[in-house]
């Protein structure tokens, strides 16, 4: 076992680490926003909107993330060709998709579906009386959510949400398969040069551990405080 290759290529590893953190934070933010909106749609008044949200959630929770990544990465250029075979503007947009845009889009859609379910169960765990009291006070929908429901929901939703974030940070490693230069892909470049896969992948695993373990301790502490 020869760990000196890690020190030799430390700058590449640090760059990949930072890109992974950037990708994780971005997809967490966009996924949470989308998930919150979809959960509002699913538990809202309009039946047709709730149906659209349900279909979206079923699609993105019913198939593997890797397959979704492949479908978007290989399928979008194909879709551009089918929909506008002779239009160069549309074709160039679809054919110029970078691994980064595809990864962010798919991770947002994927996490949006799961986060929507987390928020939905949060909404449904707030007692009905709160909603009735809010409408008795004359609050309209957005105020009710903002002032009454959300503050109570945060404590309930926090452990499964952060737990999902940890999974999302680990899932960003799949971006390496479609060629995005995050931590795993940088590691593979190093392996191509040095032929030391075990040392490199062990270091990559350790770096993911450094990010994820504190978060999982946070979740464990929060879950212990709840009298479930």
């Amino acid at each position, binding site marked *: 076992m020869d760990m000196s290759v890690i020190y030799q290529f430390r700058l590449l590893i640090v760059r990949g680490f930072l890109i992974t953190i950037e990708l994780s934070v971005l997809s967490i933010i966009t996924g949470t926003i989308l998930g919150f909106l979809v959960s509002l749609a699913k538990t809202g008044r309009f039946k047709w909107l709730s149906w659209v949200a349900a279909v979206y959630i079923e699609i993105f929770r019913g198939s593997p993330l890797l397959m979704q990544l492949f479908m978007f990465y*290989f399928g979008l250029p194909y879709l551009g060709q089918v929909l506008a075979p002779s239009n160069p503007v549309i074709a160039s947009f679809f054919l110029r998709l970078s691994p980064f845009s595809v990864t962010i889009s798919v991770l947002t859609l994927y996490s949006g579906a799961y986060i929507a379910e987390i928020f939905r169960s949060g909404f449904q765990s707030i007692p009905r009386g709160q909603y009735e009291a809010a409408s008795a006070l004359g609050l309209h929908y957005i105020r009710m959510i903002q002032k009454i429901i959300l503050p109570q929901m945060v404590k309930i939703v926090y452990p499964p949400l952060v737990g999902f974030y940890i999974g999302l940070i680990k899932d960003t490693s799949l971006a390496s398969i479609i060629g995005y230069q995050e931590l795993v892909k940088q590691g593979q470049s190093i392996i191509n040069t040095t032929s030391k896969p075990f040392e490199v992948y062990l270091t990559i695993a350790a770096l993911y551990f450094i990010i994820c373990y504190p978060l999982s301790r946070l979740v464990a502490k929060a879950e212990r405080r709840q009298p479930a």
Partner: protein
Amino acid sequence: MFFDWLTPLMHWKEFVNGAFVTLGITLITFISAFGLGILLGVLRLIPRRNIVQNAAYIFATTYVEMIRNTPALVQIYLIYFGLPEFGILLKPLAAGILALVINNSAYIAEMVRAGLRSIPKGQHEAAQAIGLNPVNAFRLVIFPQAIRNIFPALGNQLIMIVFGTALLSIIDVRELTDVALILNSETFRTIEIFVTITVIYYLLTISLSTFLVFLDKKLFPVKV
């Protein structure tokens, strides 16, 4: 160029083979990971009175925390690409199943631990009162109740294993996602093939979920 929905139909045999490989890997992985997970979950709950018990607890805790906080993809790469550095060469299928078993055993260990901790102390005392030794008390009284409590979570983990098998497409295991990639490079009918694969995965998930709900009602008719 229009959509050509005949292409996935013509290759139905590859899809069926891929689905069977996926299901087979899922089953083997779940049974192995379940067994290993029970062992690890129990090891995390034993009293730490002497050095051996302490070492077992520390081993189980380290194993579970390390596996749960690292990506499954890196674990697969470590086993398939990293182990040959030490002379251990595994075929893709064996390496993939080993990686999936190790990964899921950690999550199942946490579920088993939570399930066992949720059993009231009174059950342990009652089992002891009717004269059962610790092993039989665990086997006949405690464990079945724990399984009843965590059965939905175990079912969810089974679905997650189905999605985990998709990762094995990278190391050349002929499961469903790999079939999609191969057919895509043969026929270039990307959207048709991937929509078909999505539908197949969705059908697999729905039928597994329905079967698990039925099994739950059959095995555990009374819930506490």
